């Protein structure tokens, strides 16, 4: 039996597509060949694992939507710097204190991270429709490519009301949110992509990384960038950015 025949036999056996005679012969062979038996068990495990995951992928969407809604209410980030009033002290202490506060503000604000974000937030063109098409999608596409993010957001939101599962538009809607400083909304879109199958998972990871970078949350930026697969188009940029964090 060639390798190809072996896998064809595994499939037919597990799908119950063998005749009685073929099945009996194959099972006799399994009794005599422990390596073949082990290979069949591994094949079955792989197949069952993928089937279970496929089934789960199809059912998880409404569940994740529930979580997104609740997470927003129960995990509110507070990234405002706390300002502490200084007691009266000598001039030199006040100057030192002011310098320390300035340093603290710079460290919290981290303007160089903003530059890093601007450098890496190079968004793709939206090519979602045929030329001259007339729809919410084409309106959004034109506005997005002209950097008119508020108009693009309205159009993409309209489109997603009709087609809520459109992953490409979820991405561009997320970018609009990001550019309009609505990072929490952006994260919701990018998390949906991150929780999807590839290649959207890598796209979601890249944009979650950028969103956290914009908010100066470096650990989360690093976490999402490190999730990107080596074969992804975002991998090189993610690795370079990771080194700069």
């Amino acid at each position: 039996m060639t390798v190809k025949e072996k896998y064809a036999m595994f499939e037919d056996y597990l799908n119950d597509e063998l005749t009685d005679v073929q099945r009996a012969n194959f099972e006799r062979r399994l009794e005599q060949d422990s390596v073949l038996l082990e290979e069949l068990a591994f094949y079955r495990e792989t197949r069952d694992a993928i089937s279970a995951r496929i089934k789960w992928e199809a059912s998880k969407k409404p569940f994740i939507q529930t979580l997104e809604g609740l997470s927003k209410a129960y995990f509110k980030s507070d990234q405002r710097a706390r300002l502490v009033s200084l007691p009266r002290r000598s001039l030199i202490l006040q100057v030192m204190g002011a310098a320390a506060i300035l340093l603290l503000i710079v460290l919290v604000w981290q303007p160089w991270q903003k530059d890093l974000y601007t450098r890496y937030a190079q968004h793709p063109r939206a090519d979602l429709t045929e030329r001259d098409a007339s729809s919410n999608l084409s309106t959004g596409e034109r506005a997005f490519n002209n950097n008119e993010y508020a108009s693009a957001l309205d159009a993409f939101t309209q489109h997603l009301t009709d087609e809520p599962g459109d992953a490409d538009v979820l991405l561009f809607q997320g970018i609009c949110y990001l550019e309009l400083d609505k990072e929490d909304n952006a994260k919701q879109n990018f998390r949906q992509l991150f929780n999807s199958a590839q290649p959207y998972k890598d796209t979601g990871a890249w944009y979650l990384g950028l969103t956290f970078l914009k908010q100066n949350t470096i650990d989360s930026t690093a976490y999402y960038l490190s999730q990107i697969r080596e074969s992804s188009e975002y991998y090189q940029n993610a690795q370079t950015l990771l080194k700069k964090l």
Partner: protein
Amino acid sequence: MHQDQRYIEGLLNNDHVIIKEIYTTFSDKIKGLVLKNNGNVDDARDVFQEALIAIHRNAQSGLVLQCPFDAYFYVVCKRKWLNMLKKNRRQEVTIHELEGYEGAEVQIEGTQMHHLQTEREDFFWQVFQDLGDKCQKLLRLGWSGLSMQDVAVKMGMTYGYARRRKTLCAQQLIEMVKKSPGFSQLKEL
């Protein structure tokens, strides 16, 4: 089966009341765990959400809780956060336990086997995603319970070609799994 199985059923059925109860009861604890271990609120949110997603998946493949949900959820969140820290390689990877949860690992032992099972499944899934698009589509359809006749129609292939191609894709997947760096660790799970 532990009486807290109701949480597992609630997650499985996307029961908003039960899920909200989980957030109300556990969000502060998990925030505490992550903040105590070099994380922030955003990290805590990710950990909390990813843990629930993992449990939802376990639930679909028949998770039966043998311990309190509290201990189980705590350990799943702790491991998620530990993995995130390890991946970042920026932090010390010793977790400081929350007070009252020092014995949680022991408590969940009966339920742990299921967790390992899903780790194996995760590994297969990661490799599956590295297959070419056509092979992925063919196996998704072919292993979803559809007949090969229907699969062939959906793929725009003849029945014979779809069968041969599916076998080749399955073979390719198994070979990729065996060559994958994680395969030797898989044997230990």
